[in-house]
């Protein structure tokens, strides 16, 4: 009886969860600063995955692209306020700061829906289409099926899908005339941070903390392993890789990181969403206890979470992909298709290294040389575990 009650409670809770969603207030309904623009603001929708707003990482990057860059707004206390040009400039990655002037806010109105459960994705996308969103962004591979469903049901609406191709019911890639998909070569950015990790480690032990073991996260791991292998063969042998099994449980991330640190790892790269906050916390505590340990952030520059403890971050500029799509929409040049962005296209990269360590200049030089070789194509970074064993970076 008791068990049944609990099961009932859980089911009811899950159902109830899917009903509630966060809806951004339509404060952007008025065109920003009347007079500056005559055109009516185009509604652009964004559905973020269950990781939620404020993950310091993947979702925040998409939000930055849409809200801050494209709409020129900042989300504060549950509503939008206009962002200053300074704020926009500071949020730009280094390779774009010279271009800051071109990041003028577009005449769009962001509508963001958070998903509390997987069942939310389709209703959320449909809600945005019904609200007249001219472009609807699905952020994350978890939304792949939902975007396919919505795009097929609403052939006139346009969609942008980040991190996945459109997949048919059998999971095979397919094309839809109203969906643009953007994939990233995470392995290339991860390769760079792996190369740096191999140069920085003193114990010759480095670690990787993944979220859920899916092909996307495996690309991070494989690229990282290849990078470590290139600069430090010994560390590559001893590389420890553990998956937490979630993207929203920082306690699990911390537990994994503590374990790796206690086994001698002194550089930890995480690709685990909010679990990564726990990884960074464990590194922070180990540093406070006198160990020289670094964490490497993911997707966004996570240096601000723990400035001393973050060696660098593997950057994935999905913010730029979202911004570009919004800009194409406003310019009337939006087209469906598949984009794959790597180092060469500035789709991924490595964040500025703000911490000091011995031999920093030399290490950064080596990493930069590797970057050039990936861009020129002399290094082909593997993307799946099967290709890792045969990978050998040719001597420069």
């Amino acid at each position, binding site marked *: *009886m*008791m*068990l049944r*009650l*609990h099961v*009932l*409670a*859980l089911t*009811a*809770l899950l159902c*109830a*969860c899917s009903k*509630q969603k*966060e809806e951004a207030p339509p404060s952007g309904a008025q065109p920003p600063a009347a007079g500056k623009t005559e055109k009516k603001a185009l509604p652009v929708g964004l559905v973020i995955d269950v990781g*939620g*707003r*404020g993950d*310091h990482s993947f979702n*925040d990057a998409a939000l930055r692209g849409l809200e801050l860059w494209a709409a020129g707004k900042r*989300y*504060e*206390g*549950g509503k939008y306020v206009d962002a200053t040009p300074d704020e926009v400039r500071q949020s730009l990655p280094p390779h774009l700061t010279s271009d800051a002037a071109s990041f003028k806010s577009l005449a769009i109105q962001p509508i963001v829906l958070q998903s*509390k459960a997987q069942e939310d994705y389709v209703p959320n996308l449909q809600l945005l289409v019904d609200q007249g969103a001219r472009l609807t962004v699905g952020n994350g591979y978890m939304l792949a099926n939902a975007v396919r469903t919505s795009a097929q049901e609403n052939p006139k609406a346009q969609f942008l899908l980040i991190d996945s191709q459109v997949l048919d019911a059998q999971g095979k890639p397919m094309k839809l005339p109203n969906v643009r998909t953007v994939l990233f070569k995470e392995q290339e950015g991860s390769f760079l941070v792996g190369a740096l990790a191999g140069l920085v480690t003193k114990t010759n032990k480095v*670690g990787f903390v993944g979220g859920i*073991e899916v092909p996307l996260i495996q690309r991070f791991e494989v690229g990282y392993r290849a990078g470590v292998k290139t600069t430090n063969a010994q560390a590559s042998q001893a590389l*420890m*890789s*553990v*998956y937490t*099994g*979630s993207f*929203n*449980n*920082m*306690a*699990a991330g*911390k*537990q*994994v990181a*503590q*374990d*790796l640190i*206690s*086994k001698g790892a002194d550089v930890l790269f995480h690709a685990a969403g*909010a679990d990564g*906050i*726990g990884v960074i*916390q464990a590194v*922070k*505590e180990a540093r406070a206890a006198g160990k020289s340990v670094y964490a490497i952030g993911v997707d966004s520059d996570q240096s601000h979470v723990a400035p001393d403890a973050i060696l660098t971050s593997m950057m994935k500029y999905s913010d730029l992909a979202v911004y570009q799509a919004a800009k194409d929409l406003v310019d009337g040049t939006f087209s469906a298709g598949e984009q794959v962005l790597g180092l060469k296209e500035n789709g991924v990269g490595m964040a500025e290294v703000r911490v000091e360590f011995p031999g920093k200049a030399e290490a950064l030089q080596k990493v930069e040389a590797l970057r050039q070789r990936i861009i020129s194509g002399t290094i082909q970074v593997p993307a799946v575990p099967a290709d890792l064993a045969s990978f050998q970076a040719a001597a420069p």
Partner: protein
Amino acid sequence: MLDVLHSLLFSTLDAAPALIFAALGAVLSERAGVIAVGMEGMMRVGAFCAAVAALTMPTPLAVVMGMLAGAALAGVHGFLSIRWRSDQVVSGIALNLVALAGGTFLLESLYGPNGTPPIQQLTRWNIPGLSSVPVLGALSGHSAPTYLALLLPFAFQGLLTRTPLGLRLRAVGDKPQAVATLGLSVPGLRWGAVLGSGLLAGLGGAVLSTAVLDRFEQHTPAGLGFMALAAMVFGRWTPVGAFLAATFFAFGNALRIGLVSSAPGLVELIPQGVLLALPYLLTLVVLTLQGQRSSAPAALGTPYEQESR
């Protein structure tokens, strides 16, 4: 090898307290006959309030604030389910939803979605002499809640089985009419148990934001409140049983992590997903072996009405 055991023990002791406190809270409430589905929400409220309070006051005091906040939410549960005899499952779920959405709303309006500003963590106690002992050294270097979590279950078990108050608490969950015929207040005892469970759940949540992390992270407690219910059932509604079950969950997780990092060859044989499910598979096995015998309090979930018999 000793290193591996050391890190296994340390990791378990560091991760288990939040779950232990919440499981004890669930046992307290349910032994008195009130279903404790709202643990998740109470933990969340406790975690949030402790993190916010720690911005302005010493962290230990902030933990107390988190406990009080958990008790306040439990008060609502008590009011609905004891005073108004409403459905206890529905009340608990409603509180979970309120805490989930309310926590996110308050966090975003007060501090932005990135979590509260960092706070001072609870101090970790290094026990002199112990830290250098192999394996047992893992007992040193935890914050106060860890040690409390090791002692409290046994004190609670003693209270429940060896004191008049404990007898009354158990009776009120099994045969409330019998308690009433002795002239004791059934609502009074149940109120005490529910508020106590709120304090414990609030403590569990506060541990997450003051000892595990140094801020309130928006997903907290990420399902731990439901794990606590599982630990309670697994532990047959006894404090020590729930403690062992909670420790077992934490240990199972630590073991999985330790296995993967120490024996990478294993992952090639068994996918990590299977290892992730291992603690729960073991739980299922144990529950099956226990057989049909139910240990749930007889009057659990039944609102007390004086006229009923």
